[in-house]
């Protein structure tokens, strides 16, 4: 197997341990499947308006009705249609994950690049901040946010960005340390460009491909965290349907109304699995270590 990551000559004696079957034969297929599923999810989010029922319409006569002809995936304890709620929940999950990754990713990459570029005290401060972020029981923090301000769409995004920025910062820092010694950075500095300008203009664009890989994997995490927040009642407030909230509603009915929690959880698993596979495939195809050599 010809591995573009290892320098010539080394490859023969010491193959880099990347799963070759993922990087090679199956990569395009996995990518196509992953993108198709994501496309379906986005379509579901956009077309949720065509759902058969109003997702918040209470119909006590349909209470705990099992999946069947009238309610495709059954009805919950207030008689709301699970299928319609599932479609609307797609909107919340995808929107929250996308925005949280965008904010957390940008802030994390910027701070990380700054830490790697400046070094010294700035570096130490930002890295200790990532330590505290990674070591803190953040789910608890999130439940606090909800308790202080009452849960809202905005706060959920804020909390998830806060949880997810640290890995982006660490990634950006590591990559920046490598980039720092390169000539074009020295040249920009010699021309008198400011630190922030150099980081924004010359460092960050080089981190794009590794950021994409991380964003995909962190997107999976964001959806899981959103679900967990909603599960604890600290997510997007009811009656807005969210997947985690639906699972929580089915928690006490695991035995008598299994469909209430089952389908939203299945949806989460499929989307998260897709994002994880996408991230792994992207990493194998455009591994950041490849870019360093250029």
């Amino acid at each position, binding site marked *: 197997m010809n591995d573009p990551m290892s320098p010539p000559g080394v490859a023969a004696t*010491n193959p880099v*341990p990347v799963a070759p079957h993922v990087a090679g034969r199956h990569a395009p297929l996995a990518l196509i499947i992953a993108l198709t599923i994501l496309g379906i999810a986005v379509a579901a989010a956009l077309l949720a308006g065509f759902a058969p029922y109003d997702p918040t319409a209470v119909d006590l006569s349909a209470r705990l009705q099992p999946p069947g002809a009238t309610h495709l995936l059954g009805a919950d304890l207030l008689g709301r249609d699970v299928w319609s709620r599932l479609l609307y929940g797609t909107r919340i999950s995808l929107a929250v994950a996308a925005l949280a990754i965008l904010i957390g990713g940008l802030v994390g990459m910027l701070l990380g690049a700054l830490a790697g570029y400046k070094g010294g005290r700035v570096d130490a401060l930002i890295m200790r901040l990532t330590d*505290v972020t990674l*070591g803190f029981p953040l789910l608890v923090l999130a439940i*606090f946010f909800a308790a202080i301000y009452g849960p809202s769409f905005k706060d959920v995004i804020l909390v998830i960005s806060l949880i997810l920025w640290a890995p982006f910062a660490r990634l950006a820092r590591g990559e920046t340390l490598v980039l720092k010694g390169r000539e074009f950075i020295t040249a920009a500095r010699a021309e008198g460009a400011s630190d922030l300008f150099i980081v924004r203009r010359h460092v960050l664009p080089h981190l794009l491909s590794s950021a994409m890989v991380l964003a995909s994997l962190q997107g999976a995490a964001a959806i899981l965290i959103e679900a967990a927040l909603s599960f604890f009642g600290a997510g997007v407030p009811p009656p807005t349907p969210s997947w985690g909230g639906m*699972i929580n509603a089915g928690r006490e009915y695991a035995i008598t109304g299994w469909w209430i929690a089952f389908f939203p959880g299945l949806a989460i698993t499929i989307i998260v699995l897709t994002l994880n596979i996408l991230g792994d495939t992207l990493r194998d195809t455009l591994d950041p270590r490849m870019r360093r050599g250029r």
Partner: protein
Amino acid sequence: MIAFIGRRLLQGLIVLIGASMLIFGLVRATGNPAALLLPPYATQEQVAALMHQLGLDQPLYTQYWIFLQRAVHGNFGTSLQLQTPVLQLLEQRLPNSLKLAGLSLLFALLIGLPLGITAATRQGGFVDRASTGLATIGQSIPSFWLAIVLVAIFAGKLRLLPAAEANGVSSYVLPVAALTITGFLLSGTIRFVRSGMLEVLNLDYVKVARAKGLPERVVIWRHALRNALIPLVTFLGFYVTLLVGGVSLAVELVFAWPGLGPLLYDAVLARDFPVVQAVVIIYVAAFVVMSIIVDLLYLVLDPTVAYR
């Protein structure tokens, strides 16, 4: 060595103090616990009296200083809601959470080590593909959802296992299964063992061991695995603290497990400051201690790692 440990301890202490200030401020930002402890018809004077009794009318920095002095002596105060010393609550609950986490870790190792090793030694083979797939699926399943599904199947449909609480061996099966399969416990073990083994299997010392004619079993388990384990140890060290501090919270809640999860959850909702502070600070302390232990384990497992 001593200087290294000293420096790491000092850094850990700073992180711990920062985190304790953060949590101290946060719990107080959620509102006044006196309002929840007293009936809704309580007068302003009664609320003020209770706040004075709890010391909540003092400036924030004074409250923090008092808290810090007591905490150093192992006194985390009394639960506002349950009227029990926090330390006593922790003594009751922590072992239950640790049992759950420990058993899940044990099973993750029992399943993950052989799978990861086989995946590396027969790279690209069936076990490799299956276990990598298993790892990816496992880390994509929400733990609390799997917990509910397991209850629906094994407690509801099949009536084989209890749905809740810690009574006897059978009650451990479902929560341990949910914690082992989901998240990164099993999937991380498989991935780290696999990549660690792949990295060392081609190194000279493994070749020498093979050339000496040692049986393959000895080469793998005695020579290769020891070095391949370093990344796994780091990962598990951090992940187990995360597991007790967050992931298992939801699973414990589903099973009404008498661990730290439901204790913390109820305490947050009731603004039970002393309980929340103590639990969070213990989590952070565990995280700090774990990171120091991991650094030291590095030295034991790999003598070429130098003290920085």
